[in-house]
């Protein structure tokens, strides 16, 4: 298996608050890794360190075996140009969509391709329509985001990320802001991506998704990975009491036995 993302000894502090306390993690090509953990355990921060929306305080991140940044007497140094380029290769989907309201759906999915990657408009449009087709929204291309349901917005956001041809996709609680009846369509799209072989790192509270789709589940607690393994093992027979307590708090989510 080719390794896509490698994280080594990652630390992140906000002022005096150390949120990540030495994370090691690799994600292989085609793998879907689900990150679980209670609120404030550092899931978002970890995800955001992968594409450098946050700059790690310590440790290293590599993409496709290439180290991001350069070592400089003990610490790491990052150039903004390099980070922008890196982000084009890592797709990210947010809880609140963050679609561009002044552009149509098509415009949203073309924007990064044209402005960042420098693709021609016709090429970008082709690609955008393909991706919208992929998430089942080909007929919404000319709409403005404000006219879409939450589930549709989120699928547009996924298409927008996919259009950049990323090596890996990051999902940060992408169904948490949705009405319950809209969660399914987004999870279905994500499952389909996983089955198509997309490499994905997913933060979610949807244990059903973790159970059925993930190759590996990680449990983050107070900034360290407390437990990890196959979902069938970790979700049904956790080793730590912390994880067991966490799962009990999620009894609402049905888990097939």
């Amino acid at each position, binding site marked *: 298996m080719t390794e896509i993302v490698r994280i080594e000894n990652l630390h992140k502090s906000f002022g005096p608050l150390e949120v990540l306390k030495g994370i090691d993690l690799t994600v292989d090509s085609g793998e879907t890794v689900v990150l679980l953990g209670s609120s404030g355990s550092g899931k978002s921060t970890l995800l955001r360190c992968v*594409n450098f*929306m946050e700059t790690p305080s310590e440790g290293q991140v590599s993409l496709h075996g290439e180290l991001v940044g350069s070592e400089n007497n003990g610490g790491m140094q990052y150039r*903004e*140009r390099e980070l*922008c*380029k*890196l*982000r*084009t290769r890592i*797709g*990210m989907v*947010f809880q*609140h*969509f*963050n*679609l*561009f*309201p*002044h552009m149509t759906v098509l415009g949203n999915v073309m*924007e*990064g391709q044209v*402005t*960042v*990657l420098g693709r021609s408009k016709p090429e970008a449009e082709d690609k955008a329509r393909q991706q919208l087709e992929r998430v089942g929204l080909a007929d919404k291309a000319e709409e*403005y*985001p*404000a006219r879409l349901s939450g589930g549709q*917005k989120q699928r547009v*956001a996924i298409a*927008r*990320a996919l259009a*950049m041809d990323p090596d890996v996709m990051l999902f940060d609680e992408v169904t948490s802001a949705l009405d319950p009846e809209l969660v399914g369509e987004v999870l279905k799209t994500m499952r389909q991506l996983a089955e198509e072989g997309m490499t994905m790192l997913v933060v979610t509270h949807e244990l059903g998704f973790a159970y059925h789709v993930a190759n590996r589940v990680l449990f983050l607690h107070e900034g360290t990975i407390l437990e990890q393994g196959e979902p069938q093992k970790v979700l049904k027979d956790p080793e730590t009491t912390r994880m067991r307590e966490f799962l009990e708090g999620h009894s609402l989510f049905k888990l097939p036995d």
Partner: protein
Amino acid sequence: MVEWNFLAVLSDIDLLLLGLGNTLVVTALALAFGIPLGLFLALSRLSTIRPLSVGSAFIIEFFRTTPPLVQLFWFFFALPILIDVRMTPFIAAIVTFSIQSSAFFAEVFRGGILSIDKGQWEGAKAIGMTYGQSLRRIVLPQAVKRMIPAFMERSIELLKTTTLVSTVAYADLMFQANDLAQKTFRPLEVYTVVAVIYFLLIFTFSQISIAVEHRLARSGESTVR
């Protein structure tokens, strides 16, 4: 009983129209320089580089809090003593009102930019956009829409404030009016006509701005997310 006699004014109306032209030129140039400069000051003030943000905050506050007449006199009478420049009333007027209005526009820009949801910056950043690309393609287009009413208001304010240039003998509408009033001994009619001209000008302008606002509201894409 006051007797109104507009004939003397109307026969010399071309003097007033010349003044009106000059007023519009000063206003237009002050806008042309003031708006980009305002954007620059706003971005500097928002910058995380301390000296830059402190410096621009100082400039903005200084020009917002000192009377425009003092600024005009300073540029016209004081600056030529400091540095070897020949100040004409025209240049002094343009310099003063460009900088003065840029200070106000800077705050309009800053408010507009800050009003945009942080998620927009994040969405742009996540697809690899640089700060400049995010600003140009994502944040400013949305911010500018929200700023249009404030822009219009500021521009009208600027147009009114340009009457001050008459004090350094720049031949704007006000200056021409003073001239004509002395020449014809008809201040009542002259200043009445001038007031009407300003009224029509500004009223038309604000009607246009209201129409623009309505159009923007109707296009309906101004809601966040």
